[in-house]
């Protein structure tokens, strides 16, 4: 009889523990590649962090400006030792270090942004930014007069290349004669160089400037020249109200909230997640007043199709710069193909090297 009582007690304590586990205090850590003051990519992730910090029972912390080599490994180890429950690392170069650390700390959940490797306790995720890029391309293609668009690009990595391609496909869907010219700056936030790069594109006749860096330098260049621009990361309209047509923007809050809740409930599984517009992770910033109603309607209609899943964007036939068919007629590019994209679609002027 006593044995049963004891057992019952153990069960009860177990039950209480489980119940307690459901709203267990969660510690969530973030590793950023740049200071959150970059006004761009890391900043947008940090907005997501702030959203989950506001959840009951969740505390968060972050380490910013962490180089992608051994330093990031140390930072993640440190977080895991301090018993963080979830660690988000938001740059590609953190992938291998995170994989190493994930093996050492099997109880911690690791989430890597923008890579391709997973482990039992490590998932990867990214947003389908290319969907919003495509829509911004439609706007740019409709607004150009000279049929030359400029794209100030950061580093020739697949994420950026995919964005340029989606943008170009969007441009060509409304304006088949337009071309997109690309300039690489090899910077993520050097406003002066990025502005200069935009000006170099304006000099060769571009009349809409898009960008993939964190600084609004290119926006300023467009406004000063009296032409249009497409922002990135967050609504950049305040920097160039007369030029800013729209911007593909990040919104990490819904996704981060979901991951935290899943881990808390114990339903989290390691996976390669690639949420998009349908999940609210990427979106298009409000249109500037200069975008005509019919263009807005057309883009919004296309956006509805993307959200519904009927517009996949990278659907063949798609040719590369040399006119060679890379995605066959009617075929939809697979996620691995998109993840490893290293070639430009037809209509882009520039090199991926």
């Amino acid at each position, binding site marked *: 009889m006593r044995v049963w009582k004891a057992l019952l007690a153990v069960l009860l304590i177990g039950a209480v523990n489980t119940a307690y586990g459901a709203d267990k205090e969660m510690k969530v850590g973030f590793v950023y590649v740049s200071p959150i003051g970059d006004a761009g990519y890391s900043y947008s992730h940090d907005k997501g962090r702030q959203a989950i910090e506001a959840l009951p029972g969740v505390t968060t*912390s972050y380490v*910013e400006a962490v180089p992608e080599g051994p330093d990031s490994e140390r930072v993640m180890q*440190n977080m895991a030792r301090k018993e963080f429950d979830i660690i988000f690392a938001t740059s590609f170069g953190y992938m291998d270090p995170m994989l190493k650390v994930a093996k050492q700390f099997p109880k911690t959940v690791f989430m890597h942004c923008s890579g391709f490797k997973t482990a039992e306790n490590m998932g990867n995720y990214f947003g389908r930014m290319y969907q919003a890029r495509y829509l911004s391309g439609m706007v740019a293609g409709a607004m150009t007069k000279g049929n030359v668009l400029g794209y100030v690009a950061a580093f020739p990595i*697949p994420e950026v290349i995919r964005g340029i391609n989606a943008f170009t496909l969007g441009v060509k869907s409304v304006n088949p004669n337009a071309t997109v010219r690309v300039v690489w700056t090899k910077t993520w936030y050097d406003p002066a160089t990025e502005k200069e790069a935009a000006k170099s594109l304006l000099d060769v006749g571009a009349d809409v400037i898009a960008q993939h860096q964190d600084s609004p330098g290119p926006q300023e260049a467009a406004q000063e020249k009296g032409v249009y621009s497409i922002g990135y990361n967050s609504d950049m309209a305040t920097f160039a109200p007369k030029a800013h047509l729209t911007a593909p923007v990040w919104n990490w809050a819904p996704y981060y909230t979901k991951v935290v809740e899943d881990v808390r409930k114990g339903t989290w599984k390691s996976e390669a997640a690639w949420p998009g517009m349908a999940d609210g992770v990427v979106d298009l910033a409000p249109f500037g007043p200069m975008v005509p109603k019919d263009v807005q309607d057309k883009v919004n209609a296309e956006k509805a199709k993307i959200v519904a899943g009927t517009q996949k964007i990278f659907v063949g036939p798609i040719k590369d710069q040399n006119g060679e068919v890379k995605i066959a007629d009617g075929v939809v590019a697979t996620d691995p193909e998109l993840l490893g994209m290293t070639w430009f679609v037809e209509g882009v002027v520039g090199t991926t090297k």
Partner: protein
Amino acid sequence: MLRMRITKRQEPLGIGGSCFVLLTALSLSLLVSAVLLYLGGTSPIRGISVLFQGAFGSRYALEDSILKAIPIFLCALGVAVAFRLKIWNIGAEGQFALGAIGATWIALSFPAWPKFILLPAMIGMAMAAGGLWGLIPALLRQKLRTNEIIVTLMMNYIAILFLDFLVYGVWKDPTSFGFPMTPGFSEQAIVGKIGATAVNWGLVHCLVLGTLVFFFFRFTRIGFEIKASGDNVRAARYAGLPYDRLVMLVMVMSGALAGWAGFLEASATVNRLQPSIMVGYGYTAIVVAWLARLHPLSIGIAAVLLAGLRVGVESLQLDLQVPAAFGGIIEGLILLTVLAGGLFTHYRLVPRKH
């Protein structure tokens, strides 16, 4: 107001006095940092203790600090060799890059070689590449009298972009989904960890190389000639010392040591070549070498302290949400106060007589 006057000491300040000055300088910089922390809304005592805990307060922290000190130490050792001759090599960053490139070239070309051949070959190529990158400014200086500061600085940018060129181009791992990184090194090309610690055998390389450099300057004729020429170029030339050859020698040695650091970083810590390997150790090395007055043992201590500071600052961010930039502020303050404290090694302040 009490007016002070500076007078020269008969004897340089002894070790006890030096330690006192150093500690005073450190306390002063920490005090200023603490005030800044307080203004930023963080408890200064908590902040400083978290900083120390994070840097040296546990076995892990200590290992991390030593691990980070390894490349800084080797680069600083190299820089110190050139500085002995008063050749201002600020190109350790580029020489480090070339070392990593050289080692990677061997590691990717002959992945199947046994470890005892492959690692020495990688070291050899890293030293050769780094040394060559150091030799170019030396030759230009000697033949055309171009200033080595500007040439080494420019060559840093060129080396980093060359590394980019390789990693974004011909050496890109075909399985990396287009990301800029070489394939991972084979097991034989990796310098392992010492026992169950996080520290790799690079630490032993540092000890050996540090000792060798110490003996080189202490006991060899060339080492002595370098010191003598550094102290007084004109006198050395007059005495018939081969100044031009010494310039080339120190730049090659300097580059080779930085190259070795690049090899270790690629082989032991990253296990491949990727652009993020470049985090400015070559510039940190200049500060470390100077603070340590170019002495190998002091360089070791300074490297561990500076590495520890950088490691500790991460804890400050993680535990107390202090921005990353704060690390730069503490580092700058420490350097400036320690430097100012150096005055008391050779001088003293005495009240001015009326």
